[in-house]
């Protein structure tokens, strides 16, 4: 037996068995190294999400259930709604600190800020841009408050204490007019954005051009931040954000068409890069004659069917709300699909954000409805998403 092995080794050109074993050990080491690289590479994508996903799933578990939402709807008044939310640890600290609507927004903003801190570094820049949402919201609130001649205290109640500008909002609160607000924003990108929209505001006397330019700036930044996806999770986040941007563009076009506006009226508000609906298609849509034409021009896109389904309701009521609701639902469905498709990556985070946004939206609907006298619970349920 031993002689046989020695003769085989000799036939292979080795003087003894030692160098052959050495070679085998080397080959083994190389194979082992390849196995390790092949096995570990996918883990590099999974590992950074283990911690944030566990935290996010804990928060997902605290999203209000249907039963809880029904109990809130059945509250007799706003005080009962407030007390109900005070009983939920996640909301309690904000409810005790702020008026109800501000508490809801602050809770949502706090979630965004926490996510920005804990998400993997590859997607952190996208979440940093997402935080600009609160700066823009605050600037819009201050502009609207100035227009409505609200007091400083009333304006403060509209401010959400998050975003990069949170420590420098005093200057804006003390501003007497839009120009002073823009001056107060000197040194930030928002000053430039508002400056460009100022002539349109001065011409029309409406704040819409100012608000729309801020929204456009935010969404364009978001799309740019998400436009170089490095892995599956970043690609998924890009598709979620892209769907939101398509929905925002379509919403603007549908509203404009319902009001009979033409290309030049709409174009300044559109995010021209789009996502699935790219620049040339957006141009087509803006040049369409009517809402119906916009919907039929979308054939072949993911938005065609959902808008076609909602079209009869628009025809019946003349309101674009059902079409906008269909687009919002499409964004939520995209988030839901991603949360299932990428359970070890960005999926749970996107799913949570979508659910949390929906929860806050519904709570705001309930809050506003409870302020009205004679607003029935069944009507509130109809308004929920």
């Amino acid at each position, binding site marked *: 037996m031993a002689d046989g092995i020695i003769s085989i080794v000799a036939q292979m050109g080795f003087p003894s068995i030692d160098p052959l074993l050495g070679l085998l050990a080397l080959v*083994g080491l190389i194979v082992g190294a390849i196995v390790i690289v092949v096995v570990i590479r996918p*883990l590099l994508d999974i590992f950074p999400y283990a*911690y944030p996903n566990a935290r996010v799933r804990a928060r997902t578990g605290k999203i209000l259930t249907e039963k809880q939402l029904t109990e809130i709807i059945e509250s007799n008044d706003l005080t009962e709604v407030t007390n109900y939310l005070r009983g939920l640890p996640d909301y309690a600290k904000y409810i005790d600190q702020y008026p109800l609507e501000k508490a809801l927004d602050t809770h949502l903003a706090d979630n965004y800020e926490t996510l920005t801190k804990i998400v993997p570094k590859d997607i952190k820049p996208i979440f940093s841009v997402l935080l600009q949402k609160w700066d823009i919201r605050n600037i819009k609130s201050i502009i609207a408050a100035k227009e409505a001649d609200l007091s400083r205290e009333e304006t403060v109640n509209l401010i959400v204490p998050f975003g990069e500008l949170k420590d420098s909002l005093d200057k804006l609160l003390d501003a007497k007019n839009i120009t002073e607000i823009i001056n107060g924003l000197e040194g930030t990108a928002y000053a430039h954005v508002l400056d460009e929209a100022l002539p349109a505001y001065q011409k029309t006397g409406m704040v819409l051009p100012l608000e729309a330019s801020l929204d456009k700036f935010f969404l364009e930044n978001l799309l740019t931040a998400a436009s170089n996806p490095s892995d599956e999770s970043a690609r998924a986040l890009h598709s979620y954000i892209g769907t939101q941007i398509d929905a925002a563009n379509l919403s603007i076009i549908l509203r404009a068409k319902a009001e009979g506006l033409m290309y030049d009226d709409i174009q300044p508000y559109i995010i021209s890069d789009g996502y699935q609906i790219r620049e040339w298609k957006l141009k087509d849509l803006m040049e369409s004659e009517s809402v119906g034409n916009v919907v039929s021009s979308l054939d072949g896109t993911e938005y065609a069917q959902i808008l076609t389904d909602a079209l009869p309701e628009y025809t019946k009521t003349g309101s674009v709300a059902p079409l906008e609701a269909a687009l919002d639902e499409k964004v939520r469905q995209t988030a839901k699909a991603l949360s299932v498709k990428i359970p070890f990556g960005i999926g749970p985070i996107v799913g949570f954000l979508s659910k949390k946004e929906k929860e806050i939206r519904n709570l705001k609907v309930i809050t506003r409805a409870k302020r009205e006298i004679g607003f029935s619970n069944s009507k509130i349920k109809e308004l929920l998403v």
Partner: protein
Amino acid sequence: MVLEIGAALVAIGAGVAIGFAGLGSGLGQGIAAAGGVGAVAEDKGMFAQGLIFAVLAETQAIYGLLIAILLMLGAGLIGGTPKPISVAAGLAAVGAGAAIGFAGLGSGIGQGITGASSVGAVVEDKDMFAQGLIFAVLSETQAIYGLLVAILIMLGASLLGA
């Protein structure tokens, strides 16, 4: 003391056994523990459950350690003077080490991923603990197969209790 080729191969087998099994176990445990830490950061009551899911991936390293020690004992590398081990038996030892090493690597990582996912499910819904545990334990079977085959190889090559 001069180490013969056979004994050196047994040492490689032992290294492969604990090296790869420990790698899989460590990676798996790291992933599960990261999930556990996230869960505890949100809910302090999750410490025990998080720990259980993180500890699960430890077993693969234990199996690797067991085979490594048995190989070294069999070859007299610990607890005595090295025994004369034939080249064929040495190669069998490498095979035994590879069996538990690679099985432990895959099993440990798989268990860690499932563990992290289960921690997430439990912190979202406390009733998911038993189901999560069952899913996480499933990956253990591959390591047990590796352990079994490693022991059978060692028995066949007279490395166990030789």
